[in-house]
């Protein structure tokens, strides 16, 4: 799926087993700047494969669709088809969050997080960019797995401070850097993660986008 180049007509499909959540997400997305239109919604992942849902820029996927087992298989199939997926879950589980990133999800949000994080995550995904909300930053900072990438001490501090404060302005002030630099650090960390674990087209797109934006050089790969 080709990356977005203009901010108009952003579309999303929302897969969640609670109608109220789908309605709430549709409202938040439509109120975002730029607005995102929810073109399809449903409690079954099939809505992301059929009709307008199959053409939507971003898939917002609830990981627990009516059962205790997380829908990691559905996530993997969507990513393999080149879809940009933002996982939206009830579970604040570090292991599951890291697993979703490894499968190729562009973001992982818990439902306890505010609307602004979801809108930002969907916007970023539409442009093949990662978004790291505070809870995911915590999961990355606490990652002790063997295949975790090596982060610089500044990158680790950015993750920790962002997890703790949820305010990039506060983090920037604390560390004496610009707010945009906080974003660059977060993005660079995700690029490092995208280069580990299993291969996925979304991860490759994410790295390509970072090179295109000048965030990393080809030599960094």
């Amino acid at each position, binding site marked *: 799926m080709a990356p977005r180049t203009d901010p108009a007509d952003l579309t999303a499909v929302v897969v969640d087993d609670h109608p109220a959540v789908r309605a709430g997400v549709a409202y938040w997305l439509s109120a975002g700047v730029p607005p995102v239109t929810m073109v399809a919604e449903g409690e079954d992942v099939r809505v992301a494969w059929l009709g307008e849902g199959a053409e939507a820029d971003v898939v917002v996927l609830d990981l627990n669709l009516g059962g205790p087992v997380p829908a990691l298989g559905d996530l993997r199939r969507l990513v393999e088809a080149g879809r940009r997926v933002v996982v939206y879950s009830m579970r604040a589980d570090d292991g599951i969050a890291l697993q979703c990133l490894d499968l190729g999800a562009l973001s992982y949000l818990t439902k*306890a997080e505010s609307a602004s994080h979801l809108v930002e995550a969907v916007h970023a995904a539409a442009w093949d960019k990662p978004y790291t909300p*505070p809870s995911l930053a915590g999961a990355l*900072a*606490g990652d*002790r797995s063997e295949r975790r990438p090596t982060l610089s001490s500044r990158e680790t501090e950015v993750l920790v401070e962002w*997890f*703790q404060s949820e305010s990039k302005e506060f983090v920037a002030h604390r560390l004496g850097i610009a707010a945009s630099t906080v974003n660059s650090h977060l993005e660079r960390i995700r690029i490092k993660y995208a280069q580990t674990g299993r291969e996925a087209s979304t991860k490759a797109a994410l790295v390509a986008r970072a090179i295109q934006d000048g965030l990393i050089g080809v030599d960094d790969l």
Partner: protein
Amino acid sequence: MTEPTSGTRSYLFADQVFPVLRIILLAIVTLVQTVLCGVPLLANHDVYDPAWVADAAFVVLALVGAACAPWVLRGRPLPAAVALPGTAVSLLAAAAATWTVPPDLHFSEVDWSFGLVGWHLFLLLAERVAVLIAALCLHVVISLGLFVVPGPPDRGAVGSGMIFLVSIIAFQFAVVVVVWVLHRRAERVGELAAERDRLRTGQALAEQRRLDHRQRFAGQLGATLPLLAGMADGTLDLRAPGTLQRVTLAATQLRRLFAENDDVPDPLVHELSACVDVAERRGLDVSLGVSGETVPVPTAIRRELTGPVITALSLARSRAKVTLLRAADDVRVAVVADSGTIDSATSGSHGTVVAWYSHGQHTRMEARWRPEPIRLT
């Protein structure tokens, strides 16, 4: 002397009753051998065939008694290395002595060894009742065999022999029953003593726990008691913001203290949740984020980490975020809240570092602990 432990099941009887029993048995063996056996042996010396075998058997049995004496007199049970060979030697000596007795004089006072060896067996096997019974039975069987093998005894000899045999064997088996009952009692008493020891240990531990709790509560209640006293005698103005904050602080401290005593898999998260719970009851909008795998944190350190959280939450006006991050060798507890401006400061104790930082209306408190002591920066 070491105190008997619950692991020694029958220590009361083993330590007190059996030493006395063994001394009595040694005295009986000595007395019986000297008086009741030595006299008939000398008096009928020419009857035994050959006499030197009877003499040798007498000496051997005397030596067995003498060999037991060092342990018996020191109140120690006989080791198996002495008891079992001693038993075999005694039975052989008895068989040899009986073999020298003319067939028509079996089970009479001339057959001096028959009754004596029973006492030797008691002395040797007082702690091994099953072996004792087996050895006594073997002794009777050998004696009966030697009585029957030379030829069918006449009816008169059988009658008088049986009376002799039954009178001695019945008495000795009665003693076996007494020894067996003593053993059973010893085991029961041992079990009761072990149970009593377990109860005493449990009581001592419970008492220690109670003292620990009291001590801990006394330490933690330090801030609460003057507050309660001030409220009771009316010297505190309950409408003053400072008083409200002190009450909040004390309430959160108590709640954290109660949480500290709960048995939960992740105590630090449990105690932080307790702090968050009290703050939410106060109307504060608090969120708790936890990341990283559980690592064991000692109670004293947990207090160092949660103490500043309580303070930070008591200063928050409407909103706070509490986070716990556990990396490989680093535990970081933080509170970011809208507390207004607070002077930045860094302090530390017991390997923890607490840092306060304000920017605008927001204050960040982070309490950090590494198992290795960290340097203040």
